[in-house]
């Protein structure tokens, strides 16, 4: 009796700790939504996670039931999962952040699916139908987010370079969903007696579905997909939270599910691509299609001439793209800009919402190079300023400055909001070679009268420009 009472108290302590954790998560996310308080935000959320994890070791459900073996397994599993993730997260270069987020997100989805599996394989007789439905739903969503995120990771990491598409693709996905629905319904209706075969079929099909949905999606759309899977994992976590009666999981999972959905929508809007298009349409099929209005010739400029042009300019707007980050040129570019600022040039960075590999990714890369965020402007803030700029320096960006998005209704990127770099008096495009962008579309900007091409590696070019500007 005394022992039971003691465990009841511990139950209250655990629940109170979960409440605090949920509070810290929400507060942390709120702080993360403003650049001034963002750094504190992650600390709050981190504290919440530590509190929640620690008290779980004395969770009342474990009272009397938990064997020493299971405790050892828990600690071992935390070490096996946590330490490599911590180390890899420390080491990964900033350019590779998106795929790491995809990877960690997939792990979360997988964990939610595992909880569902433990509940379903363990037999559901002690659960109500509602709980069984939630367990099954969380299981599907978690499994799809798991395998889908891993494919997204592999694609961005360059482990998978092909984009498979075949005619019956949507039909195949539909068929898979039907099988999953039938198996899921059977699991729920049999309430615990569904049998290993049905449950296993259910999970395997859900994992396959995650793969078949993600494989056909092109690299340019990957950020939206990762964000979507992030929201889905949140939802799966919330559902499994209901199943195992864990308030912290319900709240944190739901908040992430809602916030993630909203974020996905914002990203899809920024690219002017409805979500259904991303998932079921074929962006890349336009690759072979209309090459756009080619015909004009590209003019080349030397770094020394370009440097002089910038040194004598009043206003320079830099449009960085992922190519700059790949060349690791952001530090040199910022040095160049600091030199220009010293000489009295007004320098601004214009960031397209989908520059880089995720919305806001370019901001992170520039921040890493030490560019203060008050020099960095969004598309809406800067677009009217291009007309007043003497030089727009496009470095490693391509599709996001392609004017055909404004002018050519046949272009697959028509309607996507772009940076009006072409409106500046002079446009200097720094580029490795004459290839096309991520979407494979010809860029009409390159052949405009006021555009000059500066060929070379981003870092070398920035260095040469820096030397020239220094001398003037």
């Amino acid at each position, binding site marked *: 009796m005394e022992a039971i009472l003691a465990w009841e108290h511990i139950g209250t302590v655990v629940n109170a700790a979960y409440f605090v954790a949920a509070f810290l998560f929400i507060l942390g*996310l709120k702080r993360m*939504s*403003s650049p001034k308080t963002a750094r504190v935000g992650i600390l709050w959320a981190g504290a919440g996670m530590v509190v929640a994890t620690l008290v*779980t070791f004395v969770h009342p459900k474990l009272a009397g039931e938990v064997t020493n073996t299971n405790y050892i397994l828990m600690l071992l599993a*935390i070490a096996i999962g946590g330490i490599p993730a911590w180390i890899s997260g420390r080491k990964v270069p900033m350019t590779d952040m998106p795929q790491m987020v995809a990877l960690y997100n997939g792990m979360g989805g997988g964990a939610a699916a595992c909880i569902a599996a433990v509940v379903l394989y363990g037999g559901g007789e002690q659960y109500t139908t509602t709980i069984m439905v939630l367990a099954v739903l969380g299981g599907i969503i978690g499994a799809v987010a798991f395998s889908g995120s891993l494919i997204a990771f592999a694609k961005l990491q360059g482990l998978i370079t092909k984009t498979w598409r075949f005619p019956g693709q949507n039909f195949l996905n539909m068929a898979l969903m039907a099988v999953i629905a039938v198996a899921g319904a059977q699991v729920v209706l049999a309430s615990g007696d569904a049998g290993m075969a049905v449950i296993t079929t259910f999970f395997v099909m859900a994992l396959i579905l995650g793969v078949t949905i993600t494989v056909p999606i092109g690299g340019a759309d990957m950020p939206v997909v990762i964000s979507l899977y992030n929201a889905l994992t949140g939802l799966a976590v919330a559902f499994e939270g209901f199943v*195992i009666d864990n308030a912290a999981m319900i709240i944190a999972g739901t908040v992430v599910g809602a916030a993630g959905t909203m974020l996905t929508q914002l990203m899809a809007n920024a690219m002017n691509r409805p979500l259904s298009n991303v998932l079921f349409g074929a962006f890349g099929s336009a690759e072979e299609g209309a090459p756009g209005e080619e015909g004009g010739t590209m003019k080349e400029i030397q770094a020394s001439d370009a440097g002089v042009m910038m040194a004598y300019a009043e206003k320079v707007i830099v449009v960085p793209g992922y190519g700059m980050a790949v060349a690791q040129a952001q530090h040199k570019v910022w040095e160049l800009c600091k030199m220009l600022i010293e000489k009295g040039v007004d320098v601004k960075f214009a960031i397209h919402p989908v520059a880089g590999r995720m919305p806001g990714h370019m901001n992170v890369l520039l*921040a890493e190079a030490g560019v*203060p965020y008050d020099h960095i402007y969004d598309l809406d803030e800067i677009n009217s300023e291009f007309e007043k700029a003497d030089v727009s320096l496009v470095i490693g960006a391509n599709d996001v400055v392609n004017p055909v998005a404004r002018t050519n209704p046949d272009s697959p990127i028509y309607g996507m909001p772009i940076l009006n770099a072409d409106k500046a008096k002079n446009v200097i495009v720094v580029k490795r070679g004459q290839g096309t962008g991520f979407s494979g579309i010809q860029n009409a900007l390159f052949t405009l009268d006021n555009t000059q091409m500066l060929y070379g590696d981003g870092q070398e070019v920035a260095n040469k420009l820096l030397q020239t500007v220094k001398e003037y």
Partner: protein
Amino acid sequence: MIEGFIALYIFMLAAFTGYEIIGRVPAILHTPLMSGSNFVHGIVLVGAMVALGTAETVLAQVIGFLGVVLGAGNAAGGYVVTERMLEMFKSSKEDA
């Protein structure tokens, strides 16, 4: 046990909270926020710990163990990556 309708209320309020948080976020924070919310659903770790702790069969132990490994990876990796990104946000008024 959280009763049905109470659970529904929690779900609704938490969903609104999530929408409100993201509603007015500048684009520069989209990536860190995605990463931050990715970290927050690492709370799945505690559920997996309970699932493993209460496991009675070898199968449940194996799946639960896998769940804790994955959950811990989500939480640890998500935290480090987010912290590193946010560390870099400074305005020119602050000194490095």
